[in-house]
């Protein structure tokens, strides 16, 4: 596919509409800087990709400040193996794109997709197809003026590798690899989820296995129903209160055992009562003493004591009366003695009372006698009746005390006997026996009977416990069978799901192996492609002869951790020096040559590039003359396989290119597009064909 023409308006330096004929093998674009050369190249790129990354601005920056319509429009006509393709891109604040072929006209996103299919189908594999297209075109089709050396200088080794990968079409492989990685990640996540989902199942199986282990092993013999029935009947015979125990259909041991226990408890209580009764009966029966006669004696003695007491009281009262009389006598004698003492003290000649004379001596004698009169005052001896009465009373009282003690003993013996009888009667009642004279024998008989029953009850309970254990074992056996069934089902389920999971894991591992191979394959393809491109790069570089010593150039590739790196190295073969960073040894001019050589080698090596165009915007700056000549020759040779668009600001160089690229055979066409001046309306463009050199061989023809 080649460029045929471009019509642009409102695009950067082009305000008014300008049509440029590009339908030539070589188009030499000349003109001083600022006349619109780069705008024309950018317009081609913009029409094809919708962006000019080099400008770093927003889409509006491509609109000319002097655009009459305020919009930018580029119409690019291409020749696709004889068929016309027209790309029209406009920007009026919004982007518009249409693509016309002989078959159809598409617009918008469909046009963009169709354009990518037309220009660089490999870009479809990229995550950002538009960017991939733009990168491919700017690395292999359009060498932009201010980024000439980007590939060899600015791009790092990985970026370079990535660019080459994209150019040689490894993008599809990379996209396959990326999709497989994404798919594998999702697959692994889903597989892990399945494994997670299996965990509860595994836990359930472990729990059931543990339960089965605890349920033990071995077969339990069948339940002895006949023995059980006999046991129940025996229990009933022994008085166990058993309801309808067969209502559930399951041998109900527990209720029978409960009834047996209740019966045994009752029996135990009866035995206990009988044993207490028997123990009571064998104790000594207290002797009862008749209290009534003693009580009569006591009453009689009490009367005697009362009589004796009365006699004593009388005697005592008599003695008391005598004693009172004697006291009165003593009181009187005392009073007289006191008076006698007083009178004696005051005894005069005359009587103070009658004033008569008296016999003082006699009187004194008498008074003194009065004062000293003892015989009259002596106390009479106690009466013998009181003592007698007292002795009698004491004797009566002793008699009474003795009789009362005897009475109390009799009364106590009566109480003890009554109590014993009462206890016996109560115990007999408790044991259900009558308090008859045959009670001891009855007790022994009953006790024997009860103890026999107790032994039978214990035996029955033991049997019942065995039945209960057997039933429990049978129940566990049933549970074991049930758990076994559950386990079998769950294990089968788990095995199936684990099989599915394991198969998925194997598929994941297969994908991993494939991914490892793809990573290696991608880098290997790129390395192989670089090996293939290397000699071409060398031929191109050598033909320009940029450096006297570093005359060879190679692509050096390295793969590390799955990432490819590529260096454009220059080599001094004579001195065996290899330099990975050409800028270290090459001048700016020589670096330009290397960059152009690399660009051309990539362009020419990618045979599948649908757009067979080499567009170079002023690539020949700062070159030594020898390099300039070499590069001009090189461009002429590139024209054999590519449509060449090359611009220069140097008029002499434009003349050199016109000469070098002149047509020498009919059908060949070299076009000059000369940007003579620039006005606000846009560039003033002069276009013409370089004349055909009809007889190119001068010497041979002459010879």
């Amino acid at each position, binding site marked *: 596919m080649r460029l045929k023409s471009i019509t642009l308006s409102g695009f950067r330096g082009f305000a008014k509409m300008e049509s440029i004929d590009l339908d030539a093998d070589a188009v030499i674009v000349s003109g001083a800087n600022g006349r619109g050369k780069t705008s024309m190249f950018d317009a081609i790129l913009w029409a094809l990709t919708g962006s000019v990354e080099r400008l770093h601005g927003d889409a509006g920056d491509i609109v000319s400040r002097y655009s009459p319509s305020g919009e930018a429009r580029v119409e690019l006509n291409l020749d696709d193996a004889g068929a016309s393709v027209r790309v029209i891109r406009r920007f009026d604040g919004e982007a518009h794109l249409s693509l016309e072929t002989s078959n159809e006209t598409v617009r918008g996103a469909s046009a963009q997709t169709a354009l990518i299919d037309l220009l660089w189908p490999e870009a479809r594999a990229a995550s950002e197809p538009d960017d991939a297209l733009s990168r491919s075109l700017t690395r292999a089709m359009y060498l932009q003026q201010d980024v000439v050396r980007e590939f060899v200088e600015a791009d790092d080794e990985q970026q370079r590798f990535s660019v080459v990968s994209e150019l040689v079409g490894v993008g599809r492989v990379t996209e396959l690899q990326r999709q*497989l990685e994404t798919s594998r990640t999702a697959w692994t996540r889903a597989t892990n989820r399945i494994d997670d989902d299996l965990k509860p199942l595994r836990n359930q199986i472990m729990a059931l296995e543990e339960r089965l282990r605890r349920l033990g092993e071995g077969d339990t013999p069948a339940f002895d129903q006949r023995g059980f029935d006999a046991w129940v009947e025996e229990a009933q015979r022994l008085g166990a209160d058993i309801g309808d125990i067969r209502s559930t259909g399951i041998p109900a041991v527990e209720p029978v055992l409960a009834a047996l226990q209740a019966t045994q408890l009752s029996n135990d209580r009866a035995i206990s009562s009988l044993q207490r009764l028997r123990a009571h009966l064998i104790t000594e029966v207290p002797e009862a003493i008749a209290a009534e006669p003693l009580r009569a004696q006591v009453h009689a003695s009490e009367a005697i004591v009362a009589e004796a007491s009365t006699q004593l009281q009388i005697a005592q009262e008599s003695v008391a009366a005598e004693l009172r009389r004697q006291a009165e006598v003593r009181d009187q004698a005392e009073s007289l003695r006191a008076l006698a003492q007083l009178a004696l003290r005051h005894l005069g000649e005359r009587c103070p009372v009658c004033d008569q004379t008296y016999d003082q001596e006699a009187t004194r004698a008498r008074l003194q006698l009065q004062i000293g009169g003892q015989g009259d005052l002596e106390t009479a001896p106690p009466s013998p009746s009181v003592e007698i009465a007292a002795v009698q009373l004491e004797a009566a009282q002793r008699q009474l005390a003795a009789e009362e003690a005897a009475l109390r003993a009799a009364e106590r013996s009566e109480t003890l006997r009554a109590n014993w009888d009462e206890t016996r009667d109560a115990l007999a009642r408790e044991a259900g026996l009558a308090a008859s004279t045959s009670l001891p024998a009855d007790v022994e008989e009953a006790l024997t009977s009860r103890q026999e029953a107790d032994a039978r009850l214990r035996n029955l309970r033991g049997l019942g416990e065995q039945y209960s254990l057997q039933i429990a074992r049978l129940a566990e056996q049933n549970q074991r069978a049930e758990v076994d069934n559950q386990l079998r089902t769950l294990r089968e389920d788990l095995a199936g799901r684990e099989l599915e999971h394991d198969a998925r894991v194997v598929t994941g591992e297969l994908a991993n192996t494939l991914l490892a*191979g793809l990573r290696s394959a991608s880098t290997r393809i790129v390395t192989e492609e670089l090996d293939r491109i290397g000699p*071409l790069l060398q*031929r191109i570089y050598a033909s320009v002869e940029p450096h006297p010593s570093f005359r060879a150039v190679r692509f050096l590739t390295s793969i590390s951790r799955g990432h490819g790196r590529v260096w454009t190295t220059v080599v001094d073969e004579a001195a065996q020096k290899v330099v990975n960073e050409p800028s270290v040894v090459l001048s700016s001019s020589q670096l330009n040559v290397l960059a152009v050589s690399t660009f051309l080698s990539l362009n020419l090596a990618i045979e599948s590039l649908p757009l067979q165009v080499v567009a170079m915007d002023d690539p020949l700056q700062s070159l030594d003359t020898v390099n300039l*000549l070499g590069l001009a020759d090189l461009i002429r040779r590139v024209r*054999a396989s590519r449509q060449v668009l090359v611009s220069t600001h140097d008029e002499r160089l434009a003349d050199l290119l016109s*000469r070098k690229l002149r047509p020498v055979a009919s059908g060949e066409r070299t076009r000059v597009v000369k940007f003579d001046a620039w006005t606000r309306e846009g560039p003033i463009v002069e276009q013409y064909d370089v004349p055909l050199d009809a007889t*190119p061989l001068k*010497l041979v023809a002459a*010879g």
Partner: protein
Amino acid sequence: MALSNVQLIAATGDVLTSNGYQQADVPAGWPSQSRLYEDDYGIVALFVYDTWLRLRSEWNVAQGHLVDLISKRLNRPDPKAWEGYLLLFTTASVPPDERREVTDLRYNTNRLRKLVATADDFETIEDVHTSLLPLLPLQVGAPSSSGSGLLSRLPGLLAADGLDSEVTEAAVNAFLRNESMMESLHRLHESR
């Protein structure tokens, strides 16, 4: 094995005539070890010297011969009049302290462009081709497959690493059909 002058002349002629050049008659007065070639775009004159010393001292004579020829045979406006190339070859070595003169001569574009090569550049016959590269058409080389073509190369490529080609094919086919590659690999795994 170093090339002789005769071999060098023969090899140069062979390379040039194999790449679109035609040999023209050498004008009278030119040295015996000189040749003249022409293609549609330019005129190439070959001068081979026995020693570097002779080359260094006689190259300007050779340049004079070619300039005279062009001025006599072509009109000045003829584009070809500006397309003369002077090949200055010697099978002798250059002393190390004089190598810079070789470079200087290469970079001397006065009147004609000069391609200079010495024994250091001619170890093999192929080296003659290398020295003439600026005059030869570009050999682009065989195109390689790309894109979908590369995908079809993958099974074979990965098989060399021991990966079953059926596995790669299953993934590639699923990718091309926009189907799940993992499902495709899984189906393949289960079918085995």
